[in-house]
């Protein structure tokens, strides 16, 4: 096996620039994609105000004060046209009886005109829930305050209401941070979404898979150059032949992942938590799985050209399903979420995010590591069976 390992390392040394380019490219692309998801672009949200009450105006003021989206008040027809054309993310429709519902202690209704469900729509719905809840609370506080003070004094109830409302708004502002958390809980969602961390983890894993799969795919070049057959008639055993290739491909994966993760930590400030051993474990198991996947893919194709055609299809589709490009938390389809379970990427991201995002320890990577190991062993078994020795 040592002969094969030394050979592969020697070949790698001669082609080190390919490895460097792939690593640098992975880093640059991970950075570009994560930046793209975190750009300063702010979607436009239109507001259609069909209720001419003071309450609707207050709701609009609250919305406009939030800086997540840009807002513009338009007519209903204009709103539907703009949303349909895609020039606005969505339109919020304040129904005619919005103010009346609040006065009557009924739940007021806000409508949304949209063409799709995506992350921004979810955020918008969350903001709307938060603002209306907060506004209704403010109104109720101001009404009760005005009624009570009005009864024990001669003060003007309308003026009292206005002052009490303004004070309530100020009070919310003072506790803004707490409000954000509360609104998240009120929205009944566990979504904790950090684009930079997710994108860097996702794209680092995604691009490193190419390097690992093509590293093990070198055995197909051996067949092309007839060195495969020549090794088979030498005293080197088949186990050593395959083992040497797997070891070097695994090491290539380790080196690249270490570079990518270290660079993301030191260049982009990604914090992978304090449990290095857990991070190393999940990544090593992932690299084993991808190496085995590479062996399996090399076993089902006849030559390197076929591998080059098949690999992008397999890796890109599983990357999309597995949530390397966007978080699975924003996916609603049960089918896609079900299919994600059979991709190594999903489990690797879940494990790394458990450490980097949720600051969990080993307990966060146990399930992902076991699933990845299982997948790796299946791919390994199939790969060994399928690799052609003649």
């Amino acid at each position: 096996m040592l002969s094969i390992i030394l050979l592969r390392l020697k070949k790698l040394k001669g082609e080190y620039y390919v490895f460097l380019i792939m690593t640098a490219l992975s880093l640059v692309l991970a950075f570009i994609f994560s930046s793209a998801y975190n750009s300063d672009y702010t979607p436009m949200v239109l507001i259609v105000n069909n209720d001419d009450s003071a309450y609707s105006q207050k709701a609009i003021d609250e919305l406009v004060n939030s800086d997540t989206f840009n807002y513009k008040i338009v007519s209903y027809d204009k709103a539907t046209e703009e949303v349909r054309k895609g020039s606005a993310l969505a339109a919020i429709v304040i129904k005619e009886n919005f103010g009346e519902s609040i006065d009557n202690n009924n739940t007021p209704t806000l409508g949304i005109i949209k063409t799709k469900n995506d992350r921004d729509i979810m955020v918008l719905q969350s903001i709307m829930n938060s603002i209306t809840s907060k506004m209704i609370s403010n109104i109720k506080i101001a009404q009760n305050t005005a009624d009570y003070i009005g009864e024990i004094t001669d003060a003007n109830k309308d003026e009292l209401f206005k002052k009490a409302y303004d004070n309530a708004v100020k009070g919310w502002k003072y506790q803004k941070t707490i409000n954000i958390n509360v609104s998240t809980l009120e929205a009944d969602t566990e979504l904790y979404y950090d684009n930079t961390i997710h994108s860097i983890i996702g794209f680092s894993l995604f691009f490193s898979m190419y390097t690992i799969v093509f590293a093990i795919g070198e055995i197909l070049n051996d067949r092309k150059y007839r060195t495969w057959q020549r090794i088979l008639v030498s005293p080197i055993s088949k186990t050593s032949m395959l083992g040497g290739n797997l070891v070097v491909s695994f090491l290539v994966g380790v080196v690249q992942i270490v570079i990518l993760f270290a660079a993301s930590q030191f260049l982009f400030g990604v914090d992978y938590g304090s449990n290095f051993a857990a991070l190393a474990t999940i990544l090593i198991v992932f690299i084993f799985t991808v190496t085995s996947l590479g062996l399996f893919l090399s076993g089902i194709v006849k030559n390197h050209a076929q591998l080059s055609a098949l690999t992008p299809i397999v890796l890109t589709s599983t990357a999309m399903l597995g949530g390397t490009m966007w978080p699975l938390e924003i996916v609603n389809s049960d089918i896609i979420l079900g299919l994600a379970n059979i991709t190594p990427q999903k489990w690797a991201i879940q494990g790394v995010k458990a450490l980097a995002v949720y600051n969990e320890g080993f307990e966060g990577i146990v399930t992902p590591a076991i699933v990845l190991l299982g997948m790796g062993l299946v791919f390994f078994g199939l790969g060994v069976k399928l690799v052609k020795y003649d």
Partner: protein
Amino acid sequence: MSLLKVNNLKKYFKEVKAVNGITFDVKKGEVFGLLGPNGAGKSTTISMISTLFNPTSGEITYNGESIVEKPKAIQQKLGVVPQEIALYPTLSGLENLKFWGHAYGLRGSELNKRIEDISQVIGIKDRLKDKIEKYSGGMKRRINIGAALLHKPDLLIMDEPTVGIDPQSRNHILDTVLKLNEEGMTIIYTSHYMEEVEYLCSRISIMDMGEIIASGTQEELVDIIKGQKKINIKLDHVDDTLISIIKTIEYVEKVETHENEMILTTQNGENIFKDLISKTAETESNILSIDIKKPNLEAVFLHLTGKALRD
């Protein structure tokens, strides 16, 4: 003493009978030739002897031990020069030799010494540090041979080692084979070049369509067509009258024409000259030259199969 014995060896690929029941043996210290056209089954036979394929049936024994049952024990004693160049193109000649030497268990100074010796044998010492992809076809062939010699094999198997190279490299390879044999190495040499086999091999098996159609020394094989000779006659012109007259000469078995040349296949060819000259004189054609071809393996193959070796 037989070093290698092949007995009733068969290799079928589905319906294709690539090798169909061949038997031969290779004696220690000889250059044994497998001669046959492309597709005759030579490379498949070599692949089975070198342990790359298992036979469909039959036996191969090396020094009495079955190659099929104990391939790893025998691989160390074999040197295999494959028909295709089997080297790493992005590595240098030296790096390739180091790898193949390492694969056969050579290490350190022993490996370096063998590489130095072998690079002299194959005549490529000056270019060893160049990458294989920069080599000419002939140089690649030489390294291809060198890689099989590093571990001093007892039996060297060479499968068409001179295909597609320049005459100079070819001559160097043939001389190398003879030199290695003089030093005691047993060699199996396959080729479809009749002259190479004639030059190198003491015993030959002729293969066609997966079967051995004749075996023996060169003399024994040529004896199959004993008495048969080919006579090439160049004339100023050839016409139908001349051909029909020549066909009437006793001992002339076959007349072939090519422009102003006639090729006669004869028995006891030396007896026809008198008739040949007198009969030609009766026509309007004049003889420019006469060349008697000595019987060779090409003629044997033609005699046995009805086709030329390079068809």
